């Protein structure tokens, strides 16, 4: 079984993000890393490819400036190859523009299954993968916490408000996985060395057969026109617990007439 995994390469989330003051696009400086949220999809893809008796895991990513450092991490985990779409024209793409790019890239891989994260760490629109599914004419299952392959279909445990649903879905399909559902493997030294020579197929907008008006800020049809710091809350009383800290909580609740 061949699995394509959408992996986003993002600025280190530990470093505070910022927007360009004029274009209001995300400032993307420095080295990008593999979005943690996508490490789960890569792990599940590797497990599914192994348990189905072989098959390839192909990474699909859209990133500025031919950035591959995040891809190398996932290749070191064991993915076979990657398709990377990079083009200056992609700056300012919204989720739909990104989905158009990813869908075209995925078509070139013809996978049995497409995995993505439920939401990315930096953009967290949570819509891109289902847009990809619609563009590819595939069914989709979001919020998966477990995926099992059963011949030509999959069985997915999908989180719900009340618990979870077992969903059956024929392949090919797009599935989004939630964070924390598996333990992503650490790349081994051998994996890291091998990743350096694994193929990364680089494409641009024209190469995908998309027109400039479908992507980037022109394709987005929406604009961010103002960014402000979120309103701060006033800080109240902070006390060191001397054994009586609990009493402070009790009187706080009493004052609110909650007890």
């Amino acid at each position, binding site marked *: 079984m061949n699995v394509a995994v959408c992996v986003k390469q993002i600025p280190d989330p530990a470093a505070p993000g910022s927007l360009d003051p004029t274009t209001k696009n995300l400032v993307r400086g420095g080295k990008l890393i593999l979005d943690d949220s996508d490490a789960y999809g890569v792990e599940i893809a590797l497990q599914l490819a192994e348990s189905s008796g072989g098959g390839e895991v192909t990474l699909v990513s859209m990133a500025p400036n031919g950035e591959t450092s995040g891809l190398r991490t996932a290749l070191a985990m064991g993915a076979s190859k990657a398709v990377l779409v990079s083009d200056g024209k992609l700056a300012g793409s919204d989720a739909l523009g990104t989905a158009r790019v990813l869908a075209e890239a995925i078509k070139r891989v013809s996978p049995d299954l497409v995995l993505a994260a439920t939401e990315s760490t930096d953009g967290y629109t949570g819509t891109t993968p289902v847009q990809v599914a619609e563009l590819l004419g595939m069914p989709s299952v979001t919020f998966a916490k477990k995926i099992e392959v059963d011949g030509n279909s999959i069985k997915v445990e999908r989180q719900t408000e009340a618990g979870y649903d077992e969903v059956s879905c024929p392949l090919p399909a797009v599935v989004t996985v939630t964070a924390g559902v598996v333990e992503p493997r650490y790349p081994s030294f051998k994996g890291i060395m091998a990743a350096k020579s694994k193929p990364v197929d680089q494409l641009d907008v024209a190469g995908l057969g998309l027109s400039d008006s479908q992507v980037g800020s022109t394709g987005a049809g929406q604009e961010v*026109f103002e960014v402000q710091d*979120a309103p701060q809350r006033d*800080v109240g009383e902070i006390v060191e617990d001397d054994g009586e800290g609990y009493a402070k909580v009790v009187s706080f609740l009493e004052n609110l007439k909650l007890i």
Partner: protein
Amino acid sequence: MGIGRVWVFGELAEGKPTTTTLELIEGAKSLGASSVEVVLHGPEVDGALGVLGGTGVSKVYNVGDLGDALVGAPIAAAIAGQIESGNSPDSILFGATYDGRDVAARLSAKISKGVITNCIGLEAQGDTIVASHALFGGSQIAKSKFTGAGPWLFVVRAKTFSAPESLGEASVESQSISVPDLGATGAAMVINRHVEERSGPKLDEAPIVVSGGRGLGQSEHYAMIEELAKLLNGAPGASRAIVDAGWVPYAYQVGQTGKTVKPTVYIACGISGATQHMVGMKGSKNIIAINKDKDAPIFTICDLGIVGDVHKVLPALIDALKNR
């Protein structure tokens, strides 16, 4: 021309509109929409019409009973069908729910229109809608608007608008809308539903929420959180760290990827206060934090902070409440 017609993707639970649905209807009304119309599905739509009429909506579109199908693809196709046949709203509001995001995303790709997601505010300015949404896990707020023609699609977070306290009943026009052939896209089916039991008030409706985080040390210690919540008639909640670790089910999670809560009091125990956690609880009226690290970010937003060990403070607090 104003904001025009606004549709709401509505959801029912136990035959009644969900709180999120009622919030979105209020939101659509607050925009000054010329009409607010609701798209509903499921076997119980007819029984919910009275309550919906009572909210002041002018029309209900009934997609019907979709059986065991995942609803994203069929509902998006039914709405797209209306738009293509000339019955197009100017905007559509979706809740940031499991199904709301699926429908919005499918529809967006189907009709080639973008979506603005994670909205925590919508405001009419002349003929446009300005959406506020949090960036970088909630540390900054951006304002966005669509630049092209509608329908404009917005995915709105829970608690952005307030649902009315009480509901009346009134009649409302209802129209069935059909689901066109979906091809492969409609093939995902639920074969089994599992409900995880939970007693006490609902996390997103409880007046008091007591949440635990990794600072509890181990899964067994979560019992303290449950006990305290019970004593206060509140609901237990959690940070993602302990949901990911499998201590409690996902339904307990508060934050960006979990629930948004705005209780009278939120008590954070052994939670550091990552931006993604705070975005789900900083709208609480009062916040109490217990953390042994005086520099934990949670202390920058709390009304009462106890710098101490949860294993000392919580048992003492539980005892004191029991002895009252």
